[in-house]
C-alpha cells in the first residue's frame, strides 16, 4: 500500500513538472532527464539485474538513432518507422556479442562491449552512406505530426514519460517473472544457479537482448528530439559513460535507481555546461569519473540502496556478498 502511494506521488510530480516549471530550459531539462532515465533503465536490466556490466551500451543507442534518422534521410519516411529496424539491429548485435562472452567471466563481456562500440563508431565514421563524420539529419521542417519534430520540449517530455513508464513496467514485470528469479539466483552465485538447473547463459543473453532493444528505442527518441545523429552523439563512448553512471549512482539493480541517477546528473551537467560553456566539457567528465570511483569504493549499490537497506535489511541490494 505504501508503495502504491509513493508511486502515485512520483507519477503526479512527473506529470505536473513541465506545467509548474514551464520555462523552455526547465522543460528541456525534464525531457532530457526522462530520456537518459529510459536509457539508464534499459542498461539496468543487463547491468543491474543480470550483473553483466556493459560499458559499450551506446552501440545499441546508436542502432536506434541511426535507424530513425536513416529512415528519413535514406527513404524519406517518418523517423518512427526506423524504430523497429533499430530494435532488430540492436538485438542482433546483442546476440552476436552476448553468445560468446556471456559464457565467460564478466570481464570478457565488459571488454567485448567496449570493443564492439568502438568498432561500430569507427566503421560508421568511415561509411559515406551513413553520413561518415557528419552524420544523418532528420526532417528540417516537420511534414506532419508523425515526423515527431517539435519546437517545444513539452511533447517530447510526455512522450518520454510514457516510454519510461513502459520501460519500468517491463523491468518490473521481468523481475517478477521466472526470468527475474533466474537472474537473482545467477547474480548471487552462478555456479549454484546452474547446478539447480537455471539456464544461466541463456537468461543473461535474454536480459542483454531486452536491454539492447529498449536502449535502441532511447537512441531513436534522442535522435528525433535533436534532429540529427553523428558518430560522437550516437556512438561515442561518453554516452555509454553517462548511461552507466546514472544507473550506478542511483542504484544498479533497483527499479528507480536509474531515474534517480538521471535526475541528479542531467541537471548537474546542463547547469555546469551553461555556466562554464565549452570549458566545462572536460570538467564535467572529471566530476563523473570521480563520482563513479567514489560509488565503486564506498557504495556500490548506489544511493537508493541506502534507503532500501534500512527498510528491508535482509533484501539483496545488489551490493554483493562476501564469500
Amino acid at each position, binding site marked *: 500500500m505504501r508503495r502504491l502511494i509513493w508511486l502515485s506521488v512520483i507519477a503526479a510530480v512527473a506529470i505536473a513538472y513541465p506545467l509548474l516549471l514551464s520555462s523552455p530550459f526547465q522543460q528541456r531539462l525534464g525531457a532530457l532527464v526522462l530520456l537518459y532515465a529510459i536509457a539508464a533503465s534499459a542498461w539496468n536490466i543487463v547491468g543491474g539485474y543480470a550483473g553483466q*556490466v556493459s*560499458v559499450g551500451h551506446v552501440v545499441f543507442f546508436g542502432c536506434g538513432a541511426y535507424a530513425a534518422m536513416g529512415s528519413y534521410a535514406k527513404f524519406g519516411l517518418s523517423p518512427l518507422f526506423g524504430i523497429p529496424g533499430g530494435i532488430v539491429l540492436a538485438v542482433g548485435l546483442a546476440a552476436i556479442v552476448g553468445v*560468446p*562472452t556471456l559464457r565467460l567471466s*564478466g570481464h570478457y563481456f565488459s571488454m*567485448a562491449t567496449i*570493443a564492439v562500440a568502438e568498432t561500430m563508431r569507427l566503421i560508421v565514421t568511415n561509411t559515406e552512406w551513413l553520413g561518415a563524420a557528419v552524420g544523418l539529419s532528420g526532417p528540417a521542417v516537420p511534414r506532419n505530426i508523425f515526423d515527431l519534430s517539435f519546437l517545444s520540449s513539452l511533447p517530447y517530455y510526455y512522450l518520454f514519460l510514457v516510454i519510461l513508464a513502459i520501460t519500468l513496467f517491463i523491468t518490473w514485470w521481468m523481475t517478477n517473472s521466472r526470468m527475474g528469479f533466474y537472474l537473482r539466483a545467477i547474480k548471487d552465485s552462478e555456479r549454484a544457479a546452474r547446478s539447480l538447473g537455471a539456464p544461466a547463459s541463456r537468461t543473461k543473453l535474454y536480459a542483454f537482448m531486452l536491454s539492447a532493444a529498449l536502449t535502441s528505442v532511447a537512441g531513436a527518441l534522442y535522435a528525433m528530439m535533436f534532429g540529427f545523429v553523428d558518430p560522437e552523439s550516437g556512438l561515442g563512448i561518453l554516452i555509454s559513460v553517462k548511461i552507466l553512471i546514472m544507473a*550506478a549512482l542511483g542504484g544498479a539493480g533497483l527499479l528507480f535507481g536509474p531515474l534517480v541517477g538521471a535526475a541528479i546528473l542531467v541537471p548537474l551537467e546542463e547547469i555546469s555546461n551553461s555556466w562554464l560553456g565549452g570549458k566545462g566539457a572536460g570538467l564535467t567528465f572529471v566530476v563523473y569519473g570521480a563520482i563513479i*570511483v567514489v560509488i*565503486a569504493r564506498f557504495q556500490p549499490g548506489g544511493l537508493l540502496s541506502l534507503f532500501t537497506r534500512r527498510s528491508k535489511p535482509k533484501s539483496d541490494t545488489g551490493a554483493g556478498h562476501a564469500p
Partner: protein
Amino acid sequence: MSFVLVQVIVGGLLLGAVYALFSSGLTLVWGMMNIVNFAHGDLVMLGMYVAYVVYTLMGGGPILGAPLATLVLATVGVVVYFALIRDIMKGPMLAQILGTFGLALLLRYSVFWWFGANFLSMPPNIVGGTYAFAGLRVEASRLLAGVVALLVTFGLHLLLTRTSLGSKMLAVAEDATAAQLMGIRPDTMQAIAWAIAAGATGLAGALIANFFYIVPTVGETLGIVAFVTVSLGGFGSVPGALVAGLLIGVIESLSGYLIGAVYKDIVVYLLFLFFLWFRPQGLMGKS
C-alpha cells in the same frame, strides 16, 4: 616479398614490442588479482604526458623522460592500489569495473581539462635521425622504443619466474591466504604488482611519446589494444603478451598499409571479437 612490406613488418614489430610492454602490466594485474584495469590505456597516456612535460619544462629527451615517467607512474600505481583497488577487489564485479572505468575517466578528462584536446607531439629528431640498414629505413625513436620495450618485457618475465620476489607474487596469485600463512604479505606483493604494472605503462608511454600523437583520448585506443593483447596471449602470461603484442603490431601495420590507415584499428578490434568467439583462452592458454 616486396621491400616495402618488410619495412612495414619491421615497423609493426617495433611498435608491437611497446604494446607487449604495457600489456604485460595489464596481464600481471589481471592474473594476480583477477581484476581488469579499464584505466590501463589511460596510464600509458599519462606516461606520454609526463614525458612531454619533462621535455617542455626541462628540455629533457627520453633519457630523462623515460625513467621519470616510469617512476611517476609506478607511484600512481601504488596510490591507486591502496586508495581504490584494495577495497574494490573484494567487492562485486560491478564495483570492480566501475572503479577502474571511473579512474580512466578521471585521468583522461583531468588531462583533457589541463592540456586541452589538441594533438601535441615531440620534436621529430628528439632521439636522433633515421637509420638505414641495407636500404631498410628505421627512425631512431621507434628503434629505441622497440628495443627497450623488448628488453624490459623480457626482464619482467625473468623477474616473475627467476627471482624470489616473483615466486612470492606467484604465491599470492595462486592463493593469497596460503601465501599469508607462509609469511608473505599479499598487500605488499599486490602493491608491488601495481607499481610494476603502472611503471611499465609509464615507460611505454614515454617511449611512444617520441613518435606518437599525444592526446588525452589516446588511452582509449591503447587500452583496447592491451585487452586484445592480453586475451590473445592468455591472461596472466607475460610471454603470451609478448608474442601477442608483436603479432598485433604487425597485423596493425600490415592492415594499415594494405587496407588503409583508418581501418587498422577496426581490424584489431574485429580480431579481438573473433578470438572471444572462438578461442577465449587465448593463443597459448589452456582451455
